[in-house]
């Protein structure tokens, strides 16, 4: 009897340790937040281009995480990407003329959604849509725009150079 109790105690300790390790890995190592559950409220925003934004990415104001991206779908009525965000309940005083932009954390970091506060006296409620949005910057577009402007810059410069020599 005493021996089986010792075995059970050891086993219990082992199982507890295993689950504790698992729990620690899930809660401490990952960026997943529990307890958010169905708390908070949802906002939507449409974007021309969401780039590398993914569900679960943070929504932040001045660098403070106030919520997460819940889903990203394509809206065929507007032909834009529709992003649904879930904002934590305590952040309920976001002016309803605030703007949302897709930004990148660091040079190689992941993308997140930044909200810049507006100046309206009324605040966002559940289900509202953010009107002012700024799309993600796509590097290829940026480079092609840069090259294009370079090319148009150079042509008149060539012309004027000819004129001066004449």
């Amino acid at each position, binding site marked *: 009897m005493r021996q089986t109790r010792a075995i059970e105690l050891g086993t219990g300790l082992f*199982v507890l340790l295993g689950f504790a*390790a*698992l729990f620690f890995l*899930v809660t401490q190592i*990952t*960026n997943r937040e529990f307890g958010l559950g169905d708390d908070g409220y949802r906002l939507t925003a449409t974007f021309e281009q969401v780039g590398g934004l993914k569900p679960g990415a943070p929504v932040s104001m001045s660098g403070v995480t106030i919520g997460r991206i819940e889903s990203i779908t394509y809206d065929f009525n507007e032909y834009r990407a529709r992003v649904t965000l879930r904002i934590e309940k305590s952040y309920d005083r976001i002016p309803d003329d605030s703007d949302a932009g897709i930004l990148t954390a660091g040079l190689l970091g992941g993308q997140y959604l930044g909200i810049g506060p507006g100046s309206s006296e009324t605040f966002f409620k559940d289900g509202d849509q953010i009107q002012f949005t700024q799309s993600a910057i796509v590097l290829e577009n940026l480079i092609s725009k840069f090259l294009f402007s370079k090319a148009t810059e150079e042509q008149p410069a060539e012309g004027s150079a000819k004129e001066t020599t004449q």
Partner: protein
Amino acid sequence: MAVPVVRDLVESVRETLRALGAYAIFAVRLARETPRALWRFGLVVEQVHNTGALSLVIIMLSGLFVGMVLGLQGFDLLERFGSEESLGTAAALGLLKELGPVITALLFAGRAGTALASELGLMRATDQLAAMEMMAVDPVRRVVMPRFLGGVISMPLLAAIFSLIGLYGAQLVGVQLMGVDTGQFWSQMRGAVEFGDVMEGVLKSVVFGVACSLVAVFEGYHSVPTAEGVGRATTRTVVISSVSVLLLDYMLTAVML
């Protein structure tokens, strides 16, 4: 002249197929017995103790050293790209998704798998299993099932402990020895590791747990009832478990990546 070679080849292919079939039939039988075996929980607990709790020391020690090596190697590699802050991410992903489940499974095969196989093999050799059948006690139900389930339950827990200890081993070397910033180490890890990564490791370790335990109880239960047969069953357990774990690991990674 060539005919005996061909005959041998055909024979060995047929033998392999037969073994595969026997494994499959045994696995189905164990799966069918599982709900009933879970009722006799005391027996399973005893085996969780044997396979899990007693493997704890070797798992923790190995985890620590694997993590420390990961810290050293990872630091050396990442330093070349000037991104040694990512050491936490690299160590966490490496441990959770690969090293944790795989090395735990290999150690498990060596530590617990051999014990199971030789125990069952010796029961077979000393006619204990036959005696049980004589008393109308099904040895698969009474002896094999608890051992199988004990292994399946223990493996994910051992793998989680391994990964956790390994992570602290990597932190020990990376932060204390090599001077990576503690905050960077943990915060970059938290930013990059997803819930799915942890679950991938858990899923892998469950699959490995089933594979290793199945091989151990199968080889032990079906061993030739001699001293030599028990020895061979033990060897086969380690060889077959290790190879199948590495094979399964590749397939699971390819599916889940």
